[in-house]
């Protein structure tokens, strides 16, 4: 009994775990919380698109072209958000489009983060020519406007979904490389790294096991912000006809193909536009929240 009592008394006094404290900081930011809920919803929709979408995104209901959303006059309850210019259900297309957009965003982030971490650590730990080659290459990439570079890459390797991902990954690579290198250089000189080295750890182990975990916070924030930019850029490429090819329900491509109906059937244009807006907004809010919560300088004690 005494032991139990001690525990009960001790518990509130114990410092909260790192995750709990992070979440406390994070949820103090109302906007970030809203963003997180929206994002969660989007992820849920994307994962269960097959179950949630009423129809296939490429099925054409040729009797029902350009039906307005259900609540507008002339709408049809079978098509909640209306149909597009060749009779495909907008709701289904938007739902599958969410999957496509989040997939692009996530793939770009994972790919550019993985490659960026490796290159960044190499640049930090091999100060000779490898560092020079890597960093100057990144400078070259950075010197070209990002969308332009993506367009050039896609134009060379041909328009498709995979190539879009490759192109945007290349565009975002330098940010990770520079970020990782900068924080790794800083961490490298710390005492704990020296201690590890004295303890006999090899360079690889120091790079990935000792230094990397301590550089993760800014990388995670950068990742969150990249997702939204990647989605925007994929939409821009899709709009220009260089992204996912028809008939895939990519939001940017949907916007582009419906431009001519801007005046006569505005929902075909506004709905994918809103979808992009909401997604990007949600991700940015979460990203801001992450930054506030993870950045020690901004953390309230």
């Amino acid at each position, binding site marked *: 009994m005494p032991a139990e009592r001690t525990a009960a008394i001790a518990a509130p006094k114990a410092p909260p775990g790192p995750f709990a404290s992070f979440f406390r900081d994070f949820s103090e930011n109302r906007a970030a919380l809203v963003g997180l809920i929206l994002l969660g919803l989007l992820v849920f929709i994307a994962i269960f698109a097959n179950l949630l979408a009423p129809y296939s995104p490429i099925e054409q209901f*040729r009797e029902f072209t350009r039906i307005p959303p259900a609540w507008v006059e002339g709408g049809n309850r079978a098509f909640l958000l209306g149909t597009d210019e*060749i009779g495909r259900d907008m709701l289904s297309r938007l739902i599958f489009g969410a999957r496509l957009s989040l997939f692009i965003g996530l793939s770009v982030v994972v790919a550019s983060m993985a490659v960026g971490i490796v290159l960044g650590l190499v640049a930090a730990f091999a100060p000779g020519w490898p560092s020079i080659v890597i960093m100057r290459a990144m400078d070259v990439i950075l010197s070209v406007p990002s969308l332009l570079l993506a367009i050039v890459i896609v134009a060379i390797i041909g328009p498709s979904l995979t190539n879009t991902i490759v192109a945007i990954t290349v565009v975002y690579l330098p940010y990770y490389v520079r970020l990782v290198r900068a924080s790794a250089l800083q961490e490298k000189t710390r005492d704990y790294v020296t201690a590890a080295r004295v303890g006999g750890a090899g360079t690889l182990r120091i790079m990935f096991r000792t230094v990397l975990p301590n550089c993760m916070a800014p990388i995670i924030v950068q990742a969150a912000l990249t997702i939204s930019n990647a989605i925007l850029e994929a939409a821009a490429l899709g709009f220009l006809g260089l992204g996912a090819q028809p008939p895939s329900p990519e939001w940017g491509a949907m916007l582009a193909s419906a431009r*001519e*109906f801007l005046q*006569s059937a505005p929902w075909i244009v506004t709905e994918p536009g809103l979808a992009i807006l909401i997604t990007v907004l949600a991700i940015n809010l979460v990203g801001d929240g992450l930054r506030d919560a993870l950045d020690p300088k901004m953390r309230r004690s």
Partner: protein
Amino acid sequence: MKIFARLLAATMLVAGVASAAEAKTLVYCSEGSPENFNPQINTTGTSFDAARPVFNQLVEFEPGTTKIRPGLAESWDVSPDGMEVTFHLRKGVKFHSSKTFKPTRDFNADDVLFSFNRMWKEDSPYHKVSGGAYDYFNDMEMPTLLKSIDKLDDYTVKFTLNKPNAPFLANLGMDFATILSAEYADAMLKAGKPEMVDQQPIGTGPFTFVAYQKDAVIRYKAFPDFWGPKAKIDDLVFAITKDPTARWAKLQKNECQVMIGPNPADLDAMGKDPNVNLLSQPGLNIAYLAFNTTKPPFDKKEVRQALTMAIDQPTIIKDVYGGAGQAAKNFIPPTIWSYNDKIEPYKYDPAKAKEMLKAAGVQEGFESDLWWMPVTRPYNPNAKRVAELMQADFEKVGIKTHLVSFEWGEYRKRMQAGEHQMGQLGWSGDNGDPDNFFFLLGCEAARPGGQNIAKWCNKDFEDLFQKAKTTFDLAERAKMYEQMQVIAHEEAPVFNIAHSVVYEPIRKNVTNYKVSPLGRREFAEVGLE
């Protein structure tokens, strides 16, 4: 942001030009950038439109009709056997001048000889300039048709033919038969910049070329010494605006007064706008899907017939053309004489199509490409949407298609080279003669690089085609063309999608603008109030 800034700058430039309208300026919202300014080496309406204000031909089409009237030739005689055509040239016709060139003489027979020899004779110093491909000249079979072109005196030129050719005069009114300045060409050759002839055009037309900025603007000004009636406007501007919705927005704001290729979806609003006249004319055109008959399984006519049956044509007409098109069953539009109305179109029947494909040995899940052009054409407002509809149709009969497109110039080049399996293209007639449509299915144009993109060469069809060319009796010719339509229907080298009705919205203050049945934009006689 930079792109936006540039767009803004371009828009302001065009707007600035439009607002300086005290000197009467007509702005035409065109759909794309011309490849160059020499119609001899071009094949697109976009490029022809851009060169037309600057040039003339020996004979020309009366605006708004397909009738021939004298151009640079005042009159002509045809010999009784139809083998010789003698042109009497107009005197006192001045060429334009530019910063680099001042003409020292008037137009004469040398210019005619130079212009035709450039396309015809390999020993012409200009034959290889700017790529040296004269698609129109070759596809109209001019090299085999022409025996000689002789200068009888400075103002008389005689064309001798190898065989009588009924459409010959109408062909000379087409853009490829444009007359360039021989003196200018010599000067540029001496200066070592022969391709300037195709980039900085010097002609005899109602407007002189001023400046061109790719994807932005082309500027012309009226030529005071023009031989015909003087232009009623002072400046002519082509504001290159690729997006049809943007063109319509500009027209509404009076940033341009004439536009090409409206969206079918906007036609309603255009008809209601009090400041806009919506002109229309049944188009002398055809949009089609060509099957590349050199690639299996498209070499089998059963396969081509089955694919034709698999396409839901009424839906394409409804969803892509809106009210602005009629389903096509023949390769020529019904407004052309010799249209064979007895042809029964293939019925939409996916089940039967699937059976036929199976019988022809096409596996379920066969993969093909399906090309769509990246630009609005007068005969096809949205090729991408047509492709998406066809993709779903083909899916139903077990054929997987991926959609392919390239930049417009590249697109045609690759397709003429025969890289595609199935691809869309179309045609706007140039002279109102059935010959001008059927050559697209002829053997001559089926060569690699030729304009027959089905690459289809059928002996019966070709024989009739050649015979009709040398027949002057209209009724007899019509019979042959009718027979050719029966063959083309049976063989199905192309799927005939539609003939569009051409709409051209213009501002109410534009006078004397006529929609050309030949799909041209002509500004020589247009005025502005």
